[in-house]
């Protein structure tokens, strides 16, 4: 048993290494669940439990400095306990939710603690010791997997027996109650997603997604495909190519040509390899994420190969390191654009005596917020949603392709874009953004991704939530099942109605924790009184 515990701990540690791995979703329950299943000899169940947990945590995303529940620890331990106790997804849910909330406190504690090293980083910078900066960045990054590894191992050693004996005392009616309660929870995930996307203009696409799945029984992949087509058709009609935003009076005097323009000079000091290493190192952007200076050391870590090439003197290196240890925070997926631009500016600075060094940081800080807005919306708001929708719909049936597709759908566009943006940033500087702002590409992309995202979310209640009613209507001998009647009118109306119910409360700012408890209670009581199954 100890061997499996250690292997499971390693899986949790791998998940917590995500900050070195470029936020590639390797740490999501949908991916780690099957790995835990593999260790415990039940791959199939690992896939299903991972998918179930993914659904519940679907609405929890990391934007800016807001830290969601720790789904890594919660997901790994929840899956492990569920398989060990042999009671399936219901147990995984009952455990994963509280565990992830507790574990989040530990992780937050680490983010609060990390700034104690900032003085040391500054000292390294003073002396131009870039190796010191690199070393400390990595060491601090390793702390998270180590710390959470210890937490996971302790929980496994202390918790397994307790969970098992607790499980044995649960009567069957309570167990099925727990099962139904767990099946209710995806409604919260869907509602949180709707909260990000749903609006009056988008409502038709949401219901289109619902109808395609509930009446036409289309699989999620088909909805995704149709969503892409719908998005293309609609944005081609509504966003005819034209210069923007001529009619916006606030931008009348918006003279682009006065803004700083950086174009890659002919005799470059940096090599293609240097630029590629910016991309590779950007993967560790968040390794030393902390609540004081956020991703600052990650930025410095990423740009060090360029600084090494450009600044041969200790003084030059020291000044550059200090520059890049200032507060920084952006969406990791698009961070390479800013890193590339900063590299181009550093190159210019190294070449020109009278270059204004301050401008490097003002461009960085000017871009980090807005670009986080662009890339958070694109990756968390759209691509992640589609990847999770398709991935979980397959994984819930125990198909191993689910987690794989989940990773591919997210990471193929992510990594291609992340790589390209490094070079675009370096080669065209801010010119790329200026050109982009003169076209309507961004508006088109935002409108299109909102259509696609809403269709996929609309398809979720019908495909990913298994709540039915066993109630009968009519006198006892001629009674007909209510579900049969509902299926004749609107199939999957119950999951849809529950999703809208939760959405209603989310809109009224009811706390997520209360909604979670409310849903669990509703499901449990509903099962006991034979309203839900």
């Amino acid at each position, binding site marked *: 048993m100890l061997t499996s515990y250690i292997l499971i701990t390693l899986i949790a540690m791998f998940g917590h290494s995500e900050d070195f791995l470029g936020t590639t979703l390797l740490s999501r329950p949908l991916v780690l669940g099957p790995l835990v299943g593999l260790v415990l000899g039940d791959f199939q169940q690992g896939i299903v439990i991972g998918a179930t947990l993914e659904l519940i945590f679907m609405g929890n995303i990391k934007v*800016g400095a807001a830290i969601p529940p720790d789904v890594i620890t919660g997901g790994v331990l929840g899956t492990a306990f569920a398989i060990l106790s042999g009671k399936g997804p219901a147990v995984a849910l009952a455990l994963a939710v509280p565990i992830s909330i507790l574990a989040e406190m530990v992780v937050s504690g680490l983010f609060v603690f990390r700034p104690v090293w900032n003085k040391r980083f500054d000292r390294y910078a003073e002396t131009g010791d870039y190796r010191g900066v690199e070393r400390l960045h990595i060491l601090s990054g390793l702390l998270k997997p180590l710390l959470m590894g210890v937490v996971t191992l302790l929980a496994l050693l202390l918790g397994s027996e307790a969970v098992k004996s607790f499980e044995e005392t649960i009567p069957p009616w309570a167990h099925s109650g727990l099962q139904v309660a767990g099946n209710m929870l995806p409604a919260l995930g869907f509602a949180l997603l709707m909260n990000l996307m749903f609006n009056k203009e988008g409502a038709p696409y949401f219901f289109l997604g619902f109808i395609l799945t509930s009446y036409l029984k289309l699989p999620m992949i088909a909805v995704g495909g149709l969503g892409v087509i719908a998005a293309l058709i609609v944005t081609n009609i509504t966003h005819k190519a034209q210069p923007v935003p001529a009619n916006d009076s606030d931008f009348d005097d918006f003279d682009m040509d006065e803004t700083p323009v950086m174009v890659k000079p002919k005799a470059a000091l940096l090599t293609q390899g240097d630029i590629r290493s910016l991309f590779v190192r950007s993967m560790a952007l968040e390794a030393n994420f902390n609540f004081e200076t956020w991703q600052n050391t990650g930025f410095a870590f990423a740009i060090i190969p360029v600084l090494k090439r450009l600044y041969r003197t200790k003084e030059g290196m020291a000044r550059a390191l200090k520059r890049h240890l200032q507060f920084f925070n952006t969406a990791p997926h698009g961070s390479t654009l800013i890193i590339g631009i900063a590299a181009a500016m550093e190159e210019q600075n190294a070449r020109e005596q009278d270059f204004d060094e301050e401008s490097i940081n003002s461009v960085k800080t000017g871009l980090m917020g807005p670009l986080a807005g662009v890339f958070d919306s694109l990756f968390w708001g759209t691509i992640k949603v589609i990847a999770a929708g398709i991935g979980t719909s397959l994984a819930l049936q125990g198909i191993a392709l689910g987690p794989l597709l989940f990773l591919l759908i997210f990471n193929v566009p992510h990594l291609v874009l992340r790589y390209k943006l490094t070079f675009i940033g370096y080669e065209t500087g801010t010119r790329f953004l200026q050109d982009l702002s003169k076209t309507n590409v961004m508006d088109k992309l935002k409108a299109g991704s909102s259509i696609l995202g809403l269709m996929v979310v609309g398809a979720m209640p019908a495909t990913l939530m298994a709540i039915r009613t066993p109630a009968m209507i009519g006198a006892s001998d001629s009674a007909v099942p209510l579900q049969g009647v509902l299926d004749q009118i609107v199939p999957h109306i119950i999951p849809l109605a529950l999703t809208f119910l939760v959405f209603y409360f989310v809109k009224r700012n009811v706390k997520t924790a209360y909604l979670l408890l409310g849903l669990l209670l509703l499901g449990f009581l509903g099962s006991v009184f034979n309203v839900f199954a």
Partner: protein
Amino acid sequence: MIKLLRIDDRLVHGQVALTWTPAVGAECLVVANDKAAKDDFLKMTMNLAKPANAKLLVKSIADTVTFLSDERAKPMKILVLVNSVQDAAALAQALPEVRSINFGGIRGKEGARPISKAINVTDADMTLIRELLAKGIELEVRQVPTDEQRPIETLL
């Protein structure tokens, strides 16, 4: 009307574009910042980041007051962004409509101390905060809409 007045030193970014704008149903984002109002580069980047179905205006504090006092602004659902307690206090002073201020993010700097994960305040900020509280204006600390809403007085 002002649906939300938020202090956030990154102004328009992920939390604002992705969570706050839909949560308060904002049709118009007003960035009230004297520096940004004069900086075309900043304006351009913020314009790229703005949510699809919202309008973005970047105005000086004085122009923001004029704009928000205008009758035509009354039917609009507006989200106002400032990057300092000082600017928020200036708006609250000039606009009686402001009854609540959201503290979203103020990074740490020399002379500032953290009062929550994302909020750092200086002594000057503290004076302004007490003045605002004395006027009965609600000051709540929250990064994203689904976070717990914490009154600032519980954190001081």
